[in-house]
C-alpha cells in the first residue's frame, strides 16, 4: 500500500463478528464523509478483481476514510446469532458499521458504494439513516423497459455467435423476445383498473429512490452495457419515471464494460469517476 495511507484490520458489531479493513490517509482533511464499500453477492470484501481494495486505496490516498467489510456470513464475518433473515441481517450490519465509524472515527456523514447486490443494499439502507449523504451504485437492480428488450435483441442480432446459438437451441435471444412480448402484454394489463402483481416491486424500488431524493441523498449510478440488466444510459430514468431525481442523480453508462469491470482500464475509469464525484460532493457540503 502507499506510504501515504494506512490500513487497519477491524472487528465491528456487538459481537465483534464483522471483519473489515479501514484505509485512511496519513493526513485527512476535516469534514469529509467516510466511505463504506459493500459486498457484491457472496464475494468477500476484496471484491471482483480486487476492485474494492484498489478503490479503497485510491480514495484513502485522496484523503477519505474508507471501510470495506464483510456482511455477516460472507467472507470472514461470522453469521449473526439473532436469526435475522439475510436482507435484514445485511441492513443491521451496515448500521453496525456506521455506528462503529461514528463512535470510533467521528464519521457523521457516510457515502455507501456497492456493485450489483451491494448497490441494492445501499439503496435499501441509505434512506433509512440520516448519516448517509451519498450513494455510488454500480449496476443496481432497476426495472426493465420495452426499450431495454429492443436494445438487447438488436445488439444480439448483430452478433454472429447469437445466430449460432439460435441454430443450436442455446440462445437467450428467443427468451428475451418472449420477455418483450410478455412485457407488452403486461403494459396492456397495467391499463386495467387493478395493477399487475409484478409492478409491486417496481413501485417499491421507486419508493426507495423517491425517499432517497427526498432526504437529499446524492447518487452516482453507473451502468455497464454487458450486464444484460440494462442496455442503454437512460433506462433508469425510463424505468422510474415518478422519481424526481433532478440534480441528485449523476447517471453514467460504460459501453463495452462487463458487470464486474474485469478490464483494468474500466476499473481505472470507474475509480477516477468516483473520485471526481465524491470530491464534488465533499465540496458541496
Amino acid at each position, binding site marked *: 500500500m502507499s506510504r501515504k495511507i494506512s490500513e487497519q484490520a477491524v472487528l465491528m458489531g456487538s459481537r465483534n463478528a464483522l471483519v473489515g479493513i479501514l484505509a485512511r490517509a496519513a493526513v485527512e482533511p476535516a469534514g469529509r464523509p467516510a466511505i463504506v464499500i459493500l459486498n457484491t453477492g457472496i*464475494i468477500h470484501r476484496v471484491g471482483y478483481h480486487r476492485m474494492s481494495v484498489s478503490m479503497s486505496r485510491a480514495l484513502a490516498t485522496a484523503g477519505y476514510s474508507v471501510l470495506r467489510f464483510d456482511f455477516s456470513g460472507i467472507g470472514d464475518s461470522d453469521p449473526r446469532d439473532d436469526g435475522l433473515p439475510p436482507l435484514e441481517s445485511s441492513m443491521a450490519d451496515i448500521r453496525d458499521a456506521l455506528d462503529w465509524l461514528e463512535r470510533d472515527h467521528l464519521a457523521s456523514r457516510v457515502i455507501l458504494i456497492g456493485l450489483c447486490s451491494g448497490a441494492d443494499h445501499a439503496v435499501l439502507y441509505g434512506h433509512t439513516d440520516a448519516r448517509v449523504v451519498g450513494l455510488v451504485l454500480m449496476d443496481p437492480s432497476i426495472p426493465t423497459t420495452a426499450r431495454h428488450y429492443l436494445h438487447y435483441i438488436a445488439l444480439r442480432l448483430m452478433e454472429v455467435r447469437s445466430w449460432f446459438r439460435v441454430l443450436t437451441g442455446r440462445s437467450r435471444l428467443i427468451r428475451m423476445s418472449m420477455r418483450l412480448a410478455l412485457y407488452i402484454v403486461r403494459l396492456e394489463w397495467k391499463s386495467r383498473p387493478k395493477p399487475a402483481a409484478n409492478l409491486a416491486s417496481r413501485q417499491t424500488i421507486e419508493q426507495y429512490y423517491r425517499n432517497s431524493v427526498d432526504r437529499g441523498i446524492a447518487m452516482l449510478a453507473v451502468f455497464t452495457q454487458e450486464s444484460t440488466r440494462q442496455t442503454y444510459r437512460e433506462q433508469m430514468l425510463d424505468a422510474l419515471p415518478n422519481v424526481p431525481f433532478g440534480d441528485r442523480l449523476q447517471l453514467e453508462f460504460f459501453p463495452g464494460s462487463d458487470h*464486474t469491470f*474485469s478490464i483494468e482500464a474500466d476499473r481505472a475509469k470507474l475509480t477516477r469517476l468516483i473520485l471526481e464525484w465524491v470530491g464534488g460532493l465533499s465540496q458541496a457540503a
Partner: protein
Amino acid sequence: MTPFYFGSGARRLFGIYEPAAVAGTGTRLAVICQPWGAEYVFAHRTLRLLAIRLAAAGFHTLRFDYFGTGDSAGDMTDADLPGWEADTEQAMEELREIAGASRIALIGMRLGATIAARVAARRPRDVDALVLWDPIISGTDFLPGVAAAATGAEQTIVVHGFPLTARMQCDVRAIELGPLLAAPTTRSLLAITERRPLHASLPEVPAGPGEGSLAIEFITDVCPWIWFDPTENVGAVPVGVIQRIVRWLE
C-alpha cells in the same frame, strides 16, 4: 478469529488467525496457502471453512494473502513467486510467535499448493505435514489454460481481471513439481479432485524411517471445481475434500 497485519512496513501481509478450539496432545500449527487470481476469490469461502475445521480439530491456523493480493499491501504487478514463497515463510514465523510451537502443517490449494511444496522442500525440519490440493504441477501445463483466458497482447496478460506480469509468467512457466513429489521430505498428501493426464505418472511414495512420504488420493465431491465459479456465484463448498484433509492431518 483475529484479523491482523504482519510483516515489514513495505510488505505488510494480511492474515486471519484461528486459535485451536480444543486442547490436544501438544500444540499443532497449520498455515494455509491460497490460490491466485479468480481462483483465490472463489476459493475464499472454502478455505475459510477449512481453517475453521482445522481449528476445531486442534490446529492453530493462519490464512494469509500474499503480497499484492487480497488485503495485503502492494500490487500484483510488483509480485513474483519467490516473494510469495518468502511470504509463506514469514507467515510460518508469525504463527510460531503467536502459538508457540515449531512444527507446522502446510496446506495449499492450486498455485498455493505449489508454493507450499517448494517451501516444505526447503524447510523439512519446520514442516511436519504437507497437503497439496490440486496443485499446479507443471507450469507449461497450467499456462496454456491461463493464456486462453487472457486478454491483452502486452507482456503483462490479464487473466479473468488479474494481471500476470511477464516476470510472473516466467516464474509460473518454470514450475515443475514432479521431482519434489517423487522425493518428498515430509509426510505429504496429494488431494486431487480433477484428474489430468499428468497425474498418471505420479508415483505414491510410501512412508519410511526418517523420510517423507506421498499419498495420492482422488477425491470425488459434488462441487470439485470450487475455485472457478465466475458465472454461478453460488458459493458451493466441497465439504468432502475438507473433511478428508482434516482427517488426514489428524
